[in-house]
């Protein structure tokens, strides 16, 4: 830590420290300066409507004082950075971002009340398709197959789910159909990528275009003409886990959801275990990092890739089912609105790990639900700009993280056996 010259010190310590000071000042000026000391914000900690959770008092905070505290957090971090240097720059950025969002929420809720539990709950729900898309990406790319076609898989299985659900009247059959169709599209992508060695991004884009065309075609040829007979499936009921759902705040957020959200959370854990603690996971990762070495040791590279991409497709199929039978019970054209791509960004942000991808998806889900809640609060920002939030967050996250995130070494490279 010896200071040999002034320049590295300025660059590594002083400048980031000053930036953190600036962030603190910005937080105060934007969200604290125009507020009166007496104004308060109420955050609801109990879910609205029927619930099993124990009722606890809501959280009421003085806006100005809280914003001052949050801006001081940034200033404190800046001072720490200048005096001692912060090892993990990611942590500092994360904390400042949290302070910024929290201060923004306080400002937006001044003299108003806002259901924090509702917001967290909808964050998780909105993160579900993103997380499933991201998990599909993780399992495929760990075996070195880039799948850009996730968006298309989501769209096709969303439509499959609603049609099968309405026709059969059984949502579980619909769920299985969606998963199978997702697997089928995954199999097609695997065939293109592994057997024909097609540029994987081109194949994925072809899947996306085909999916948009096919679902729109089916929509305007069949669904629009017979809405009640084909496009009105209803949605999965909310399941409350006994006991666990009684926990205040966390209970209603985590343990009162529909089956797809639960399956998603289970899949995160299962995929983590499979990838890092089973022979199959080891083989998958080997195939993703160094297929030739894996091949030499007797791992069937092609088979591994086929299975992973198909499984990924099935996971994405589950994600697609969320859009219709998990959320609105109806299919609209192009209803996935880029969620598959946001899932890919979540995968990158989560450094190709299931838990990382899940956490990143929560961030995107939060941005998505924030946008909805803010419209309800009626803050003076046009709703169109709020709707951009998830996309902008995706770009910022990608820009900030890609340089340091390492993709599996063989990602996107077809394997040539010789």
């Amino acid at each position, binding site marked *: 830590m010896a200071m040999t010259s002034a320049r590295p010190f300025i660059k590594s310590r002083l400048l980031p420290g000053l930036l953190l000071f600036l962030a603190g000042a910005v937080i105060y000026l934007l969200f604290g300066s125009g507020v009166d000391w007496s104004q308060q914000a109420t955050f609801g900690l109990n879910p609205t409507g029927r619930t099993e959770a124990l009722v606890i008092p809501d959280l009421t905070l003085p806006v100005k004082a809280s914003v001052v505290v949050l801006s001081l957090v940034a200033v404190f971090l800046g001072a720490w950075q200048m005096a001692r240097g912060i090892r993990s720059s990611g942590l500092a950025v994360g904390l400042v971002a949290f302070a910024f969002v929290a201060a923004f929420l306080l400002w937006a809720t001044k003299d108003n009340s806002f259901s924090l539990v509702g917001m967290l709950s909808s964050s998780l729900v909105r993160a579900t398709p993103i997380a499933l898309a991201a998990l599909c990406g993780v399992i495929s790319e760990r075996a070195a197959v880039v799948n850009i076609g996730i968006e298309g898989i989501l769209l096709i299985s969303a439509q499959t789910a609603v049609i099968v659900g309405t026709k059969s009247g059984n949502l579980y059959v619909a769920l299985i159909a969606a998963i199978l169709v997702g697997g089928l599209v995954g199999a097609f992508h695997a065939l293109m990528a592994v057997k024909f060695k097609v540029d994987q991004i081109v194949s994925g*884009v072809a899947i996306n275009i085909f999916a948009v065309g096919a679902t729109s075609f089916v929509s305007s040829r069949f669904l629009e003409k017979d809405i009640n007979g084909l496009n009105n499936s209803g949605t999965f009921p909310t399941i409350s886990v006994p006991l666990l759902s009684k926990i205040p705040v966390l209970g209603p957020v985590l343990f009162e959801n529909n089956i797809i959200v639960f399956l998603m959370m289970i899949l995160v854990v299962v995929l983590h275990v499979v990838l890092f603690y089973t022979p199959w996971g080891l083989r998958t990762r080997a195939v993703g990092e160094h297929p030739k070495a894996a091949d030499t040791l007797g791992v069937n590279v092609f088979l591994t890739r086929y299975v992973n991409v198909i499984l990924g497709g099935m996971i994405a199929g589950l994600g697609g089912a969320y859009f219709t039978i998990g959320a609105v019970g109806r299919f609209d054209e192009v209803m996935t609105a880029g969620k598959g791509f946001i899932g890919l960004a979540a995968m990158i942000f989560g450094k190709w790990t299931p838990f990382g991808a899940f956490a990143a998806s929560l961030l995107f889900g939060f941005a998505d639900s924030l946008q909805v809640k803010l419209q309800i609060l009626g803050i003076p920002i046009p709703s169109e700009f709020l709707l951009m939030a998830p996309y902008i967050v995706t770009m910022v996250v990608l820009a900030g993280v890609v340089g340091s995130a390492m993709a599996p070494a063989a990602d996107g490279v077809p394997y040539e056996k010789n």
Partner: protein
Amino acid sequence: MSAKETKTSKAKPRKEKDLQDKKRPGAWQVIAMPLLAVLTGLLVGAIVIVVTDARVIAAYRNFFQDPLGAIGLTFQTILVAYGALFSGALGSPERIFLAFERLFTTGETDGLVRAFWPLSESLVAATPYMLAGLAVAIGFKAGLFNIGAEGQFLMGALGSAWIGYTFHLPWYLHLPLALLGGAVAGALWAAVPGYLKATTGAHEVVNTIMMNWISFRLSDWLLNGPMKATGYRPITPVVDSTATLPRFFPDPIRLNLGFIVALAAAALVYWLLFKTTFGFEVRAVGTNPDASKYAGINVPRNIVLVMMLSGALAGLGGATQVLGVDHWVGQGFSAGYGFDSIAIALLGKSHPVGVILSALLWGALRNGATRMQSMAGIPIDIISIIQGLVIVFIAAPVIIRWLYRIRTLETEKVVLTRGWGK
């Protein structure tokens, strides 16, 4: 699978021998393969049309009572659909013949205008496709996959519309300025993902898609707020006549100067790619970025420039559509142009001449599909299905070769992009 492997390894020496031949025996395939891809796409499209047709399905239910009727109905359905597609795209030959007859006997030109109207509409439709297709193609040449042409197209349209209705200038200033405005808006919109790719390595595929969604929201806001025309519809005001691209023929025919602008842009791209140092660098970066870096090419600068050029072309496409055809921008203005342009660039093998030809084909297909929708009741989305298939067939020529038993003569491998952040 191992049997397959030995087959390909056996094929290798033959391939190398063929490459040594000076005659380039596979030259005809450059034209034939894309055409076969489109043809196969149309064939599969025909199958989709038939199996989703209630009348045909009903006929096959009673197949054993009336087999000929079922088969006849199948072909009749396809014939009606694709007949409408053809006459919608190129005009009906019968009407053209009759119109010429009228012209020579009575000197009347009305019929002629009506007979050539479908063809002219196909050219009108092809104009923005050429520019957007060039946008994607130039990206491919540099190893960049710009799937955000749709957003850039929209921003270009909005930019040129804004200049078109805000300023009031003589045409020789107004029109170039409006076109330039479209190109600049598109270039700036594409510069963002380009810059992010060059500096942070964030993949342009995800970022351009995100920029697309942002542009849709932005245009929603603009069309309902700052750029809204008086009235209740969310559209921009009509551009001044001094900013419009002049039309070549009297009214129903909308073919305009934009077509020439698109051809000129293609020529410019050709010159830029194959006759300048910049173009050489672009192609070098696209073929091997690492080698280019060691050869002293500034790869990040190249990436930003190519993305901006790509965005400028897409934006110009939007501008020609506004200034030449619609004269105002409404919601859903850009729908489909992004994905269409990818298909066109792939179909044209990313070569400017190929892009012109495939854009003409695509314009005809799209234009014909509108007639197919109104005449035969086939949703226009069938074109997107065909499109996805065409891209698959172009990207995986193996399928076409297998279907039509064409031998592999050249080493062809479509590698257009690389993995994340490399």
